[in-house]
Structure formats: structure tokens, C-alpha cells
């Protein structure tokens, strides 16, 4: 952003003078702006940052930097801090950054950008969007939840009513409905209605208290499996499940395998709907390094493993083998197109 800072970043001189160390000049700098959930949200932002870390681990010449957004109003300011700051690519994480990223990209046509969860129409030459068919992964989770529910009621809630969130919820509901029509069950989904696009939303991506309260409400309505789609908000739901016991309430994680990212409550996660932002981010960094970068879209699907279902964790032995086999069959069906996720 600043010319002075540019010099600092390029040579490390000013910092070296004061700090007494010499910064290693890196050949490629990947910068990331997180959404309000923060870099350590055990899901969304953390997974995207893992992509940068993976790239760094694979190639010593890559340096990664990140900047956390504390409020929605920080997006533009954060982008400004990174622009001209020696970033070879700026990766913005989240649909809500769509406007800010577009503005910055149009003002700085030489700067490469990539945004997670936003597809521009028409595409912008210096922005590569990364989107995911998460409804495919969530469809499997819905099928699983319907097969596992004892009360016949499962629930979901979201952070904010935006497409990358509701895609999970759509898939989940369709997966439950598919189980109902295939197996003759009558499992209900609370919290989301795909037809009217209305449902339960916390209105934020950072309040763990909300996550707890919303899961409690769904549990009170009879749900024994809940899928929170709201980044770290879901950690609050997991705490509740750990307190009242997984016989009563199980959680389906999203974005990352939450048994790994939330080890404290690892045994409440029935599974997680994976959204492999780490793999697409690494891919984008490779493309930018290899001069293959162009504006457009990368789509993660079940087929290219951009989305998927995590292992069953603590429930590995509780999930019937038959159900596991059915899920594999449904997955194959979605990939070959014989099962459509939307109805």
C-alpha cells in the first residue's frame, strides 16, 4: 500500500535495521484477507489459509501473509493495505468480499486476485473465482443424517443468507428428502426451506453463543443431528453437544474436517462436509507462480474432490455398514449424473 512500505517489503531494510535481522527476500508472496470469522475459525478461513501454508511448505520461495477482517467495513481497508505491498496474488476469502474485491481489482488491473466463494458474471480479467458445489457434499451429509436420526428430526442453520451458505443447506435438505423417498422414511429438516429460501440464520459468522443457542433451539424442537453452516459459530453448537451428550445431539461440521480443527470436541462430529478451499487455493497459487493465471472460475465438485464428506470419526463403528455403502453409491450416482442434487 505505501511506497515506503513497498521498500520495506522488498528489501527488508528498515525492519532489519531496527530488528537486527535480515528478512529473507521471497520470490513469491501470497496474501490473504480473511472474513470476520478470523484465521483460526476451525473452518472456513482456516481452511483457505491452510492452502497458503501448504503452498509454502511445498515451495520455500513462497511467503504467505494474512490480514483478518474484524468487521465487514474492514474489507476495503484491508485490501488497500495489501495492494502495492508486494503481494503477487491477493486471495480474498468469502462471498461478502465480492464487492470490495471487484472494486480493488478494477482499480488495480495489474494485481492478481482470487476470491473464494464468488463468481463474477461477466468474469474480471485479473480475478479468479473459486466456487464449490457444496450441495453435493451436503447431500451426502443429509442422506447420512436421515439414516442416523433416531428422533426423525434433523436441523440446520446458517450464518447469513448468502449462496455459499445456503448451498450447504439446500444439499442437506435434498439429501434427507432423497433418503425419505428411497427408504420410505419421514425425516424432517428444521431450519431451512429451499423453496422459499427462508430459514434460521444467526446473522453473523463469529458468535459462539449464537451457535449454542441456535443448536439448543433445534434440539428443543426434537432435532438430534444439527449442521451449523456459519464458520466458528458452529463451535458453540459443538460445545452444547459435548455437554448434553452425543446420544442426544450430534453435529455435522462444515468446510474442514472438524474432528481435526476442533479436537476438543472431536467426538461430537458425525462427519463434516468438506469444502476443499485449501486445495483450490494451493492450485491458484501454483497457477499464479507458473504464469498460467487468468481470470475466470475454478469449481470444486465431488468428482474433482473439491468437495466431499469427512470420515465418520468417533461414529465410525456406529454408522451401519449398509448406510456407508449406500452413501458411496449415492456419491457415485451424483458423479455420474444419475442422481441430481437439486430436485
Amino acid at each position, binding site marked *: 500500500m505505501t511506497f515506503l*512500505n513497498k521498500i520495506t517489503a522488498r528489501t527488508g531494510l528498515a525492519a532489519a535495521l531496527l530488528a537486527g535481522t535480515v528478512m529473507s527476500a521471497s520470490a513469491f508472496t501470497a496474501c490473504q484477507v480473511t472474513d470476520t470469522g478470523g484465521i483460526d475459525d476451525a473452518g472456513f478461513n482456516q481452511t483457505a489459509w491452510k492452502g497458503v501454508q501448504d503452498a509454502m511448505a511445498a515451495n520455500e520461495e513462497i511467503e504467505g501473509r494474512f490480514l483478518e477482517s474484524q468487521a465487514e467495513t474492514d474489507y476495503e481497508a484491508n485490501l488497500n493495505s495489501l495492494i502495492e505491498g508486494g503481494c503477487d496474488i491477493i486471495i480474498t476469502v468469502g462471498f461478502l468480499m465480492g464487492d470490495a474485491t471487484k472494486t480493488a481489482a478494477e482499480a488495480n488491473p495489474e494485481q492478481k486476485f482470487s476470491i473464494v466463494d464468488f463468481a463474477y458474471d461477466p468474469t474480471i480479467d485479473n480475478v479468479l473465482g473459486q466456487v464449490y458445489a457444496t450441495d453435493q457434499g451436503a447431500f451426502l451429509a443429509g442422506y447420512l443424517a436421515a439414516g442416523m436420526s433416531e428422533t426423525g428430526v434433523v436441523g440446520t442453520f446458517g450464518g*447469513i443468507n448468502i449462496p455459499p451458505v445456503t448451498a450447504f443447506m439446500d444439499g442437506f435438505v435434498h439429501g434427507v428428502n432423497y433418503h425419505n423417498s428411497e427408504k420410505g422414511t419421514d425425516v424432517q429438516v428444521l431450519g431451512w426451506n429451499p423453496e422459499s429460501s427462508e430459514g434460521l440464520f444467526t446473522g453473523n459468522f463469529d458468535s459462539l453463543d449464537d451457535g449454542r443457542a441456535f443448536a439448543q433451539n433445534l434440539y428443543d424442537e426434537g432435532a438430534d443431528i444439527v449442521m451449523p453452516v456459519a464458520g466458528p459459530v458452529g463451535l458453540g453448537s459443538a460445545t452444547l453437544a459435548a455437554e448434553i451428550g452425543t446420544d442426544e445431539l450430534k453435529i455435522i461440521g462444515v468446510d474442514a474436517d472438524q474432528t481435526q480443527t476442533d479436537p476438543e470436541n472431536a467426538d461430537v462430529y458425525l462427519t463434516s462436509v468438506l469444502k476443499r478451499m485449501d486445495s483450490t487455493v494451493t492450485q491458484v497459487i501454483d497457477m499464479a507462480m507458473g504464469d498460467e493465471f487468468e481470470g475466470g472460475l475454478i469449481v470444486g465438485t465431488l468428482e474433482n474432490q473439491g468437495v466431499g464428506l469427512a470420515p465418520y470419526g468417533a461414529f465410525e463403528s456406529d454408522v451401519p455398514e449398509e448406510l456407508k455403502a449406500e452413501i458411496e453409491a449415492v456419491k457415485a450416482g451424483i458423479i455420474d449424473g444419475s442422481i441430481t442434487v437439486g430436485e
Partner: protein
Amino acid sequence: MSEHKDLKSVNEKMRSLMARTTHGRDDFEDLVIVPLFAVVVALVFGALIMLATAVDIPTIGRSFVALAVGSVGSLSAWSETLTAAVPLVLAGLGLGLGFRAGLFNIGAEGQLLMGGLAAVIAGFSLDFLPMVIHLPLTLLIGAAVGAGYAAIAGILKATTGAHEVISTIMLNLISFELLNWLLRQPWIQREGRSDPISKSVPDSARLPQLLDWISPNFRLHAGVFVMLLAVAFIWWLLFRSKVGFAFRTSGENPSAANYAGMKASLVIVLAMATAGALAGLAGAAQITGVLGRASPGFSAGIGFDAIAVALLGRSHPVGILFAGILFGGLEAGGRQMQVDAGVSIDLIGIIQALIIVFIAAPLLVRAIFPWGFRRSSKKEDAA
């Protein structure tokens, strides 16, 4: 009789407490040295906290360099610092004015939200107006709505005695949810979006960018002039006008104000409304200068940070101006700190909080830096 005496001494103590936060043109030490040392001590504590969280010393050095570079080290750093300072100073002026009138207004956040939202609505619905009318009108509507919203707490206090701390906190909560709900109404919500986000404010109601001829990334906008005008106006209002005299007298000695024939209830409502107008203007400036649209939580805690700004500025318009620029600089520099040194931006919040702790405890600062103060002040404290 003794009860009466006790009450008198309590009152005197209260007054000297109030005087410390508001008054004292003669008290250079409280006005300048304490805040200065508070900032220094807070930065030192910030470094200690970084050490405690296993950040190595070179990184700490790098982070302070980044803090300086990112806040004042270049033109674009100044642009970001001032951009962040504009709403802080505007809202801080209102809060400082309230403090001087003896009102502890916690509601700037809500007033700012309501003012900003009104500015958005005025922005997109009056787009047939030419800019010379549209922009000032949009700002005025923002200020008026902020004033109205704050006046609710003022009227409640004046008529029923409801404490403004409680009522403004409650009004904040109401404003958050009201905003959330309004942003989902079809006449405000942006077409094609299902999340709560407003339509965009057209260019005719946007505060012009000042430095976009240098680089489109410079966000500094004409709100900075609005801010300076407001500083001058509030200084005049407080120290040169009859209304301001009434505000200050009521704050310092309500009984004296009463005997002098000032209507206490009117002063309360007026002071709250003026404070709200400034907070509303802060919201409107943020919307028309920076954001161009409203989304949930677009206030981003500015209304709360402004309380700190007003305290740090000792409720003096010029002090608030400098305090606001300092906080704006911490915000802009904090970002650079995270980018360059990887130190969490949350540290800036801690440093801001520490500054306030030390400001609120001048005795602590005096104890740490005894050589920074004259003897006499020590005697005063001891007494």
C-alpha cells in the same frame, strides 16, 4: 446533620471526578502529559504482551515499525489514518459534549447506525436531486435521525429520570435488530440479494474522494472537512455560546444551573440530541464517504471506540481531534502490523484498551512517571 455533611462531601468528590474528565484549561498535566504517558505505557505493555505470547523480539521491533509506517509513514498511510479518524472524531465530539453536560451517553453506536441508515435511504431514494443539494441533505438527514434517536434517551431521562447509560445501551440493541430487519425490507434491500444489504448510494450523494487522482486506492474523502468544521463548531458551541454555557454549568453543578434559571430537562434533551446529531453525522459520513451501502454492523464498533476517543481527548474538541487521529492511526497501523509482522490485529484493541485504563487512572501514571509531574500536583492528590 451528619448525613447532610456526608452527602456534601460525596458531592464534592463526584464533582472533582467529573472535573478531571472534563475540565481544566489550567491543568496542562491532566490534559497533555497523562494522555501522552498513557499511550507510551500502553505501547510498552503491548510489547510485553507480545513477549508473553511468545513473539520474538525482532518481530516485536518489526511490528512497531509497521505500526508507525502503516499509520503515518506515507501518503496512503495518512489517507487511511484520517479516513478511520473521521467517524471517530465526529462521534467523539458528541460524546465529549455529553460528558461536559454530565451525560454518559453509551448510545453513539446505535445513533451512528440509525444516522447512517437514514443517509443510505436518503441517498438512494432522492437520487433525482443534483449533488449540491443531495449530498448536504443526505448528511443532514443522517444527523437529524441520529439526533432524534438520541433524544429518546434524553426525553426518558428528563421526564422519568431513566438513567441514560441504561437507556442508551438498550437503544443500541434495538438499533442493531432494527437495522437487521430494515435491511431485509424489499424497498431497502439490494435487488438479487437474499442477505441483509442495502441498495447502493448514488454518486450524487457520495462525499468526493480527495486523493483518487493519485491512486484509486486512497480512500480519503471530503468527510475530513466535515470533521474539521464540526470540531470548530463544537468548540464555539461549548465555549462561546449560551447553550454551551448551560451544558457545561449543568454538568459541573446541576444545582447552580437550576438556581441560575437553566431548565435542566431542556438541557438534557438538547445535549443528548446534539450528541446524537454528531453520531448520526459520523454514520452518514461513513456511508457517503467510505461504504456506499449499509450492511449489518456497518458501525463496526466506532460508537464504542468514540467513547475512548472522547475520554482520551478530555472532552475537549481539539483533544478529541488528536485522540481520533491517534486511534485512526492505530487502526491503520494495526493492519500493517499484521501484514508485515504477522502479529494479530487484536493486539491493537488491547493497546487501545490499555490507553483508556491509564487515562482513567492518572494516579497510576503519576506513580510510574513521578518525574513527569510537578510536586504540587502530588500534594494535591495526597490531599
